């Protein structure tokens, strides 16, 4: 198997998925690399590599959250630090936008987050079903519900953000 080719093709998508899940580019890089390290020790069909990598990456995210509450606090504070790098007004605006989306994602169930993020990465429904552990025929319905929940929470925060009076 052309591991280097797979890496070049799949790393950006996996890293983006992990950034969206964790909010930290460094953590995302670490976990994405760890997933690839584990892949190198596997015998696996090439067409199964991508769902396999995302399954392992999700497990790594869970392990990391479980192992250390302290590390979890670091993950939660990282986006704020990143947002503050730009000019003050720009930084504040960007920070608010980021925190709004992050807040919505945090309120969703883990399965809804996975469904929406995997759909964004262009996975087929049968691949999503395998990673998330649901029946392939139910994926459309489950994503549609997750979409509704995301939109409801997102639009609710928009109302709260509007100036009063």
């Amino acid at each position: 198997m052309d591991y280097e080719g797979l890496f070049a093709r799949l790393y950006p998508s996996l890293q983006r998925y992990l950034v969206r899940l964790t909010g930290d580019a460094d953590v995302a890089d670490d976990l994405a690399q760890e997933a690839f390290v584990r892949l190198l020790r596997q015998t696996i069909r090439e067409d199964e590599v991508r769902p396999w990598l995302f399954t392992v990456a999700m497990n790594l995210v869970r392990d990391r959250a479980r192992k250390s509450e302290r590390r979890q606090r670091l993950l939660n504070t990282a986006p704020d630090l990143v947002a503050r790098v730009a000019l003050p007004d720009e930084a504040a605006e960007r920070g608010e936008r980021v925190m709004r989306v992050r807040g919505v994602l945090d309120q969703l169930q883990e399965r809804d987050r996975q469904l929406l993020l995997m759909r964004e990465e262009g996975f087929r429904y049968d691949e999503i079903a395998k990673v998330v552990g649901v029946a392939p025929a139910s994926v459309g319905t489950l994503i549609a519900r997750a979409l509704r929940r995301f939109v409801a929470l997102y639009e609710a925060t928009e109302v709260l953000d509007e100036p009063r009076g």
Partner: protein
Amino acid sequence: MNHAAEGLLLAYLDGESTGEAAAEIEGHLADCGECRAELDWLRDRSALVTSALQRLDLPSALTAEQAWWRAGAATSARRAPATRRFLAGALGRAAAILLVSAAALAAIPGSPLRKLFTRLLANDPIARPVAETPAVPQPPAPEPGVAPARRADLPGVALVPTEGRVRVLVWAAAPGATIRVNLTAGNRVSVEAGSDAEDVRFRSSNSRIEVMNLGSAEAVIEIPRSLPFASLDVDGRQWLFKDGDQLRLSGPVVERGRDAVVFRAH
């Protein structure tokens, strides 16, 4: 009229419905305004979610080549058991005797072999990716205050932050460990461990340096004064946070000068 289920409409939108199933939905949509409106709603809200999630994106701190190289290096390190099996052979036994002898010599403080190992560790491309960063001028001599402790031959890591921030994470600092933070006029962040840091290892990306196994040794961290954000965390506790010109210190400070702070673990 029975309306199309939401999941089926979304599957159609995502190109998951093909052949007969797709034709059936298209036939229904041609006659059903409600389902067309539902499909439009799903399409619009999908675009909204895509746009919202893109706000979370942060670029990778590594190029694909760096990430691949590091993943490959980590795998090589973990294949040590296979190497040990190879060494179980006759050739391996001879090599093992040589290695044991070398290790024994390296364990003697001040021995040339120990210095060689220390230098090799310092030149490990994972531990010291200085060569990957752009060449930068050396920072000028520090201003009066706390005297910095630096030696050119000590293991360390340096980088030029590209996102206006850096996080230095120190792990396994034992009581007595001294960490000096010097604010410099350069544009490079560096961490160097003292000669007594025998097991120290480094990992770095473009905005983070991790120092592992510091023990009770000394580390010297240099941070550009012009860097907007920097933080130092020791075993999960924040000791220093730099926000522009402001320094917030919450670690065990034992000495403070205008351009330097010294912490000592207890």
